[in-house]
């Protein structure tokens, strides 16, 4: 009969009306500023740089300015300039570091490819999403200082992933140390002392050879006699030209 379909429809909306008062499956609204959103572990927003030292993030960036992410970034929003000198990293190894590391978040599309291609676990995705700014050029361009965040922060926002990364890194480190010890034992005569600069001095190395300007990964450039193969990460070296 004419009208029966309409009455059925009215019944459904009435059911939803009543349901919206007690059924959370129907009323899914979250009142945002009062009720903070619970972000899932995997949530990604914009990248940040992981540093080992919580108190002084700038001193111990994992990034060695290999520029892989800069090249792989689909919208090309990462700008990296290598340093001219080397600084000791968390392991005390002398590494290059990014003199300039900038991400233009107005260009970034949060695809996470930089994270995936980084062989050093140096760049990770952040979860901060309240990033409104008044200047669309300067405020949305994040420089090295703004990007650097300690490893503890990484543990805070991605606990599972960070634990896994740390486990892998320490395992690698141990393996590398053992290997280094083994090589050291083999070349017992070799008078190479692995530099262990516990001091936080800048320790410029005027004697170090000029860094080659190619954007090849760090490991390929400076194979030190005292250290073994790859100190960090298990990813194969990129064969980019």
């Amino acid at each position, binding site marked *: 009969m*004419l009208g029966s379909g*309409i009455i059925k*429809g009215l019944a459904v*909306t*009435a059911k939803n009306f009543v349901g*919206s008062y007690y059924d959370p499956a129907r*009323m899914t609204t979250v009142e945002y500023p009062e009720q903070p959103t619970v972000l899932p572990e995997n949530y990604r927003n914009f990248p940040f740089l992981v540093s080992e030292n919580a108190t002084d993030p700038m001193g111990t960036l994992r990034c060695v300015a290999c520029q892989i992410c800069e090249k792989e970034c689909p919208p090309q929003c990462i700008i990296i300039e290598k340093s001219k000198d080397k600084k000791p990293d968390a392991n005390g190894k002398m590494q290059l570091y990014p003199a300039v590391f900038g991400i233009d978040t107005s260009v970034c599309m949060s695809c996470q490819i930089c994270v995936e291609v980084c062989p050093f676990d140096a760049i990770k995705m952040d979860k901060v999403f309240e990033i409104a700014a008044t200047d669309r050029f300067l405020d949305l361009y994040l420089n090295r200082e703004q990007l650097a965040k300690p490893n503890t922060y990484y543990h805070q926002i991605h606990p599972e992933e960070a634990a896994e990364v740390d486990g892998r890194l320490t395992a690698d480190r141990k393996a590398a140390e053992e290997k280094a010890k083994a090589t050291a034992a083999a070349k017992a005569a070799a008078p190479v002392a692995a530099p262990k600069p516990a001091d936080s001095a800048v320790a410029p190395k005027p004697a170090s050879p000029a860094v080659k300007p190619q954007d090849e990964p760090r490991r390929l450039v400076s194979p030190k006699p005292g250290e073994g193969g790859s100190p960090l990460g298990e990813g194969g070296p990129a064969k980019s030209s």
Partner: protein
Amino acid sequence: MSPASDSYLERAPLELRDWLVQFLPEPLQWLAHHLITVVAVLAVFGTFFAFTTIAERKLLARLQNRLGPNRSGLPWIKGLKLWGLTQPFADAVKTLTKEDIVPATADKWLHFLAPVIVVAFSLMTFAVLPFGRNMIPVELNAALLYFFAAGAATELAIFMAGWSSRNKYSLLAAMRALAQLISYELPLILSVVPIVLVAGTLSTKAIVLTQGYWTSGFLPHWFVFTPWGLAGFLIFIVAALAESNRSPFDLPEAESELIAGHLTEYSGFKYALFFMAEYFGLTALSALGVTLFLGGWQAPCVFLEFIPSYLWFMLKLIGMIVFFIWVRGTLLRLRIDQLTRLAWKFLVPLALLNVGNAAFWVLSAHWAGPLQLVRWAVSFAVIVIPFVIMGRSLTAGFAPRTYRYAS
């Protein structure tokens, strides 16, 4: 009638008015008397309009599993949210302060006149509605006729708005508004004719009074509880939805097709006036429906008469409006040809039959005993059988389908 009719609460608003008027000198009293009435109606229904908008937004939101506006509190007081009930006032401030844009090629005078006319005429309809036992702004012999006459001019204003905007969407909306008005004025008036026939008067007050009886104290003699009254009420509701341009008949303003129809080129206060007129029209038509079919200010049971009549009226009015909101939250829009077809091929014949039905009801008024049952049965049959037959022909060829699957 009952003692309740002159209880203190019942007389309070009127006595307040008389008390205010007596302070004025004699020659001004007549004027003040009417002015107070007008101001009271404007104030009450202005507020009612404001809260109808928020109610509509909140109810629609709940129907759609949302929360609706719930943020606006009072200015300068932080954290006070008042369930968003002050939203309409915030909206009013916003629309009043918005820039009024008139298209360069628009017909400036008509563009300006249209919202003025539409609000003026939709407000005029309130003059003859009996809001309470003694609360009727103007008592007219031909009140019903007046109501429809005042209401008829609103669609003219929609046409003016659409035509003067010089926008193609507005023009299409203007044409639609005209077609809709011509089609639905007829069933609307025809659905009311049985009431006039049975009550024997055009006065709204007298019509309400004829419904003021109860069978054994709790079965009210409202017209909606008779076969012809129910049919008339349903036709009236459909036609009223169409007259007030509400979903599913919101064709002139069809958002998904004509952007905003006749309102496309309106902004700021003029837009607010149209918005206001639409709600005034809806309220007035609902109030008329309450008056004609739902017993007006009468209580549903005798023992409930201690509640003042104007509160009963308001309660019924709110019920009608909630129903309209509910319909809006559910139904989809008709196409213009289907709209006119529904009016001319279905509602008008049904309404005409219903007039005959009411005539039969009047003629068989003296039937008693088992004949009373026959009377009800015949009256139902006269309206239900054509409804089913015509409904079938209207939906001929349209049916849910079954589908095959690829093997």
